[in-house]
């Protein structure tokens, strides 16, 4: 055997070993080869298997983006919101709702004051957690099969490449439309495991040289700091947080926070943020009065609801001090998966 052939054989062996390293989080044993180098190309619209694309997020740019957000409502209708996102590319963002349509057929009307107040209070969380992000490239590669739709599509008058990331663990698909030039994420869609589109955000117009001199940038609606496990944190929370023994496949902890709402009549919240590279899972806890609930590790009575592709499982669990906390598990996963997380909470 020639030396060149020997080197090629060694490279193949190492590639196989490296692919085996990326089987973490996949109980079915699918290989990372599915999301590795570009494989089959094809005519006739066949998807191309690709690796994780380069994606930049709108709030990282000096930009003004007009966009439309659609979400499936419980009644089968499609709620539509016209939004305006402005960002200075240095952390300053502002998200306003400029129109609302109660279904796919109606035209946009002015948003109600309550809706505007909702956006005012939640804009930072919506941009950070609702809007699709490539949160962790390694987890995104481990947990999703990435495919590219051949050709380009036009979003906000910009040619965009469309990528589809299908969860290896049955947690649905995230579709992304990425501007070819700037790599800005101009559109995305959240599709559940049954193939039903739950949320879609589509850019309508993009201005990369906006005049933002009169913009009032968003301010936090809570005062938050990283949770350190200190007695000071526990004193502020009023309890020692429970821990989840089960987290869905592929999800890793991204943040642990203590949130104090500006309205001090509202109890502080302990928040854990998990992500699988794309989708977010929130596990929050708050001390409630009057106390109730069963001790951790026994029985949890959970309230379940799913709307717009977002599932909620909440229930009261008593800690070792006999006092109860309400635990909220919220995410775009099937609600039963959230129930498992709830049932795994322990002191």
């Amino acid at each position: 055997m020639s030396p060149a052939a020997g080197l090629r054989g060694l490279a193949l062996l190492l590639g196989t070993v490296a692919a085996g390293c990326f089987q973490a989080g996949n109980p079915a044993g699918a290989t990372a080869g599915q999301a590795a180098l570009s494989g089959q190309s094809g005519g006739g619209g066949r998807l191309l298997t690709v690796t994780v694309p380069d994606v930049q997020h709108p709030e990282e740019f000096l930009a003004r983006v007009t966009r439309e957000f659609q979400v499936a409502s419980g009644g089968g209708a499609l709620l539509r919101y016209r939004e305006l996102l402005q960002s200075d590319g240095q952390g300053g963002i502002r998200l306003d709702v400029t129109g609302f349509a109660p279904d796919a057929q109606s035209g946009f009307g002015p948003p109600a004051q309550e809706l505007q107040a909702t956006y005012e209070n939640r804009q930072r969380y919506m941009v950070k957690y609702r809007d699709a992000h490539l949160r962790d490239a390694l987890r995104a590669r481990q947990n999703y099969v990435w495919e590219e739709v051949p050709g380009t599509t036009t979003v906000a008058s910009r040619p965009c490449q469309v990528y589809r990331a299908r969860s290896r663990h049955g947690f649905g698909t995230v579709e992304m439309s990425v501007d070819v030039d700037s790599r800005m994420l101009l559109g995305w869609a959240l599709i559940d495991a049954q193939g039903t589109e739950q949320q879609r955000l589509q850019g309508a117009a993009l201005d990369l040289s906006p005049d933002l001199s009169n913009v009032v940038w968003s301010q936090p609606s809570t005062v938050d700091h990283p949770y350190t496990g200190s007695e000071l944190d526990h004193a502020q929370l009023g309890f020692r947080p429970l821990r989840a023994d089960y987290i869905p496949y592929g999800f890793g902890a991204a943040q642990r926070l203590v949130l104090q709402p500006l309205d001090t009549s509202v109890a502080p919240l302990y928040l854990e943020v998990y992500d699988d590279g794309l989708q977010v899972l929130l596990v929050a806890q708050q001390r409630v009065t009057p106390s109730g609930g069963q001790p951790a590790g026994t029985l949890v009575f959970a309230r379940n609801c799913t709307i717009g592709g977002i599932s909620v499982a909440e229930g009261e669990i008593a800690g070792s001090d006999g006092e109860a906390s309400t635990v909220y598990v919220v995410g775009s996963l099937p609600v039963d998966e959230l129930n498992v997380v709830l049932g795994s909470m322990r002191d």
Partner: protein
Amino acid sequence: MQDALRSLDGVPAPPELWDRVALARMEQCRAPAELWDRVQPAVAELARSGRIVPLRRTPRVSRQALAAAALLLAAGAGFLLLLPSSGFSAGEIQARHAARRAQFRERVVAVSVRPEELSPVARALAASLGAPSVERPL
């Protein structure tokens, strides 16, 4: 050949040239008689131990290729050593995960509720992830 040699005028000779020339000028001479007596037992031992595989001429391999091959071997060995060894097959891991999942799920008695029956905090968290909020109650 003379022209070729003259074209080399000014080119420094390689260091080993004199050794090669000196060796070529050495006369052939007979080996001493006792040389075979010294060598013969070792040859006989080799013959008794088994087949003698003739050495082929090894192909010439550059140092760079050898270094690259050694590096790849070391990297491959490192990968194999660093791979976590749980001692369980993929099927066993999946079965254990499923059992654990079922154990935790058994602890939960779940009731489906309407969005407005959720707590305000739950509704706010869901709205932060895009669930409908006010226009159609959460």
